């Protein structure tokens, strides 16, 4: 644990109020939440990443994530200042003047000023650029008129930041100005709107010639749209919703399932999935390459709904009387709507990230050199076992490659749907305690090995052709030979039942070797999934129907966007699993990569239509491979159970 995390944990343990505070939308709740924010600010914890002169600690961004995790784990109050702290503040720090930062941020940190966001209007929801509220030039400032709606916290807030039309532009995004105004100023009327949970969580704001001085314009007049999009990035991403909420809720869900032995069993898989989702979101939060905010938003909002729905189902008849879950559920339901609806996020991803329907270049992240070399080699020629040996792939374990290197190679193998007992012969068997000459044979690519290891691997893949067949039970390793051989759905792959031979040894190398095989298989799935996404994107850009590329149709765009999200959140789980080699993390990676790859496969076939169904096209190689690997090296059910046992 970092010293910072320890400090936060200790402070929260000593300070979080024992009883829940009154609702924010009541006068008592308003006061109680502001008092709480003041205590946080007093401890220097209100906004740790801000510069010190504004009330922060200039901490690195990961501290904000650590804080968020601890905050939710401690069950601390909701943050009345959230719109200011998480949306306006990052916007001001990037686009505001030092004078604005110095004037606005300190009282924001102490909750002396609570902020509301005033963007949406009755006619401008998803289509935000359709706003009509106006800012007209006045002496020394601007006069605001119009109507804003759905403004969270506006009932108790002191000030608001909003978008206003200040000039007629050729396109709706032009002539928009970003302004801050006082909710108590003359000409402002705030009308609460009761939410479906009964609270006055948001409000309408009517503006009638409200004066705003020039100093409260953010950026240049007319440049509001560009700046607003940077705020929107914070709203959709980690700033507003760190992993803390989901981790805390997933932990509570696991505890709940253990407690209520009522109906837990039917929901075991969904509980495990909720836990995997929360870990994936966390892993992504700490990952060096961030995913686009739209992907983050899709992921957390759907995870939140799924998590709470699972809890309600587990609780069954008790759900209704468990406000800690029903409140969370109703709150979660709004997630796919605010911060830009999920439909709009899928469209943005499809356009900006996948490049549909206009080509924008490659889709995946830049590749490290080894992977790039493999990629080139696999693209240029047919992959034989000798070629794998030449490239150093078969000798990875013998050369002391790290698990991180291993998954990099296996992603490429999966990406090219390379056939053979890859995880078996390259990742698992070389890690077993076997005679040195066998290992050098494997490393040099002279020997191809496979194994059965029930229950994870009931059959030996490619047992009909492998040079070395093993049977691993518990920690015992035996030689084996192929018994009955079964044809797999993957062309050229055959599964052999293994007839046990003599005992070769036993020992502690076995568990780790099996984990490495599983990890490699997960990486292969991820690579294959990514390949299918790339094929589909390429195809959707060029295939024309109804006079446009099919990638222009929302049904196609959204489906591929969902695949991109699933792959992006499986990847950090895989890396986390490789870093720690913990069983439960490997299981989480295997399940997430498998599900993402399957999703990619279904989408790919659908997008390609009949051509994808032909043998010639080759999509079938990936399609059948992921279907098979998804169940290999431990079925998803087996891995989910292992996770639940590990965290119980």
């Amino acid at each position, binding site marked *: 644990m970092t010293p910072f995390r320890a400090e936060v944990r200790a402070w929260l343990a000593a300070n979080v109020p024992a009883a829940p505070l009154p609702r924010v939308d009541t006068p008592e709740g308003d006061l109680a939440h502001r008092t709480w924010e003041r205590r946080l600010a007093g401890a220097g914890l209100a906004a740790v990443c801000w510069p010190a002169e504004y009330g922060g600690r200039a901490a690195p961004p990961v501290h904000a994530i650590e804080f968020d995790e601890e905050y939710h784990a401690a069950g601390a109050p909701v943050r009345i200042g959230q719109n200011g702290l998480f949306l306006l503040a990052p916007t001001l720090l990037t686009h505001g003047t030092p004078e604005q930062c110095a004037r606005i941020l300190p009282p924001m940190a102490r909750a002396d000023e609570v902020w509301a966001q005033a963007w949406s209007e009755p006619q401008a929801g998803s289509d935000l650029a359709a706003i009509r509220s106006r800012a007209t030039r006045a002496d020394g400032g601007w006069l605001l008129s119009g109507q804003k709606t759905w403004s969270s916290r506006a009932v108790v807030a002191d000030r608001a930041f909003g978008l206003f039309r200040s000039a007629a532009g050729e396109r709706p995004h032009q002539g928009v100005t970003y302004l801050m105004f006082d909710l108590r100023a003359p000409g402002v009327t705030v009308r609460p709107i009761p939410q479906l949970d009964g609270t006055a969580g948001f409000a309408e704001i009517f503006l009638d010639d409200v004066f705003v001085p020039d100093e409260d314009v953010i950026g240049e007049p007319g440049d509001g749209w560009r700046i607003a999009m940077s705020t929107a990035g914070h709203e959709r991403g980690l700033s507003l919703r760190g992993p803390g909420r989901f981790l805390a809720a997933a932990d509570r869900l696991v505890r709940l399932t253990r407690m209520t032995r009522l109906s837990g069993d039917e929901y075991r898989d969904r509980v495990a999935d909720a836990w995997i989702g929360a870990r994936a979101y966390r892993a992504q939060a700490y990952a060096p390459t961030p995913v686009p905010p739209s992907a983050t938003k899709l992921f957390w909002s759907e995870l939140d709904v799924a998590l709470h729905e699972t809890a309600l189902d587990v609780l069954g008849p008790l759900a209704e009387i468990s406000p800690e879950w029903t409140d969370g559920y109703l709150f979660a339901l709004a997630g796919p709507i605010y911060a830009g609806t999920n439909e709009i996020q899928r469209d943005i991803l499809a356009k900006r990230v996948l490049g549909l329907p206009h080509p924008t270049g490659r889709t995946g992240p830049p590749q490290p050199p080894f992977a790039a070399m493999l990629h080139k080699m696999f693209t240029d020629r047919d992959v034989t076992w000798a070629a794998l040996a030449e490239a150093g792939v078969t000798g990875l374990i013998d050369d002391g490659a790290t698990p991180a290197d291993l998954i990099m190679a296996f992603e490429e193998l999966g990406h090219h749907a390379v056939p053979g007992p890859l995880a078996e012969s390259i990742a698992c068997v070389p890690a077993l305690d076997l005679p040195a000459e066998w290992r050098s044979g494997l490393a040099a690519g002279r020997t191809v090995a496979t194994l059965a290891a029930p229950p994870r691997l009931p059959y030996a893949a490619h047992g009909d052709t492998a040079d070395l067949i093993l049977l691993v039970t518990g920690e015992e390793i035996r030689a084996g030979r192929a018994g009955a051989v079964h044809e797999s759905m993957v062309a050229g792959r055959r599964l052999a039942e293994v007839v046990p031979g003599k005992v070769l040894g036993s020992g502690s190398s076995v568990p780790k070797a099996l984990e490495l095989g599983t990890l490699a298989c997960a990486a292969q799935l991820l690579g294959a999934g990514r390949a299918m996404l790339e094929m589909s994107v390429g195809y959707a850009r060029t295939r024309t129907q109804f006079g446009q590329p099919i990638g222009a149709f929302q*049904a196609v765009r959204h489906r591929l966007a969902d695949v991109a999200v699933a792959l992006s959140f499986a990847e950090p789980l895989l890396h986390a699993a490789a870093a720690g080699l913990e069983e439960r993390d490997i299981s989480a990676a295997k399940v997430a990569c498998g599900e993402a790859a399957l999703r990619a496969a279904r989408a790919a076939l659908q997008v390609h239509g009949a051509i994808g169904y032909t043998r010639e096209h080759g999509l079938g190689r990936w399609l059948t491979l992921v279907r098979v690997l998804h169940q290999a090296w431990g079925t998803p059910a087996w891995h989910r159970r292992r996770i639940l046992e590990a965290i119980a």
Partner: protein
Amino acid sequence: MTSEHAALRDSVRGLVTAHGGDDGLWARLCREIGVAGLTVPERYGGSGAGLTEAMIVLEELGRALIAGPMLGTVLATEALLHAGDDTLLPAVCAGDRIVALAWDSPAPGVFRDVLDLPEADTLLVVTGGNLYEANPSTVTMQPTLDPTRHPASLSVDSLRLIGPGVPVERLRDVACLALAAEQVGAAERALELTVDHVKSRYQFGRPIGSFQVLQHRLAELYVRVEAARSACAVSPAVAKITCSETLRAVAADMVQMHGGLAITWEHHAHLYLRRAWASAELFGSPAHHLARLTATHGSAPVA
């Protein structure tokens, strides 16, 4: 649907549209259409139609989220018929008396999911296969997400026997079917309201219903609602599971497609959502019925 069925549906819908929120709706439904006696033979004051017809009425009430005494009445008349009663039935069919029936007993002497208790003038209980008239000794209104329906848990004293021979399993089946019909109605109406909304709400200069993703999702919901209606013909447990899940799915998409509007108290979307979650748990959750199904069909247990 036969023309008689369509006529029944239309007349119920007409009354519900005209008098939906009125206290007198139930009396009118009984007097003008005879809904309370649909499952009761003529010699007891009913019309001798059947459960199918009662389900048509329930579907209509479900559409409007009216939780009135129809569902409870179908159950009560079923019990009274088995017990051979001939005094209460005519009054119930005429709409003169409202009877609450307690039959779902999680523990001896305790009943749950008792409907219409506040409106009822008579409480009947089924215990040990016998039907009794009873007085409630303790009553707790069950906490619920759904503001339109208030089931009660209760215990009783001073039982007066009406008659023997009331099978609780049959009551559970009728309850599941009747509730499923309500759920189908609610789901169908929620879908209609959502389709109306996406046709009239403009964003990006077009009705949002012109965007393909919404069209496809609505098309899928339509298929689910129709499948749910068909599921009512399969078995009570299948009906309960399918209709509960369908209503939940439709209500969730209703919320999503209404955007911010759906998150307000005023808009009805949340009432459909609340009905969906609350009704799914009434008379046994979908998971409970699924377990029952797999047990009776001897198929593999749910992993």
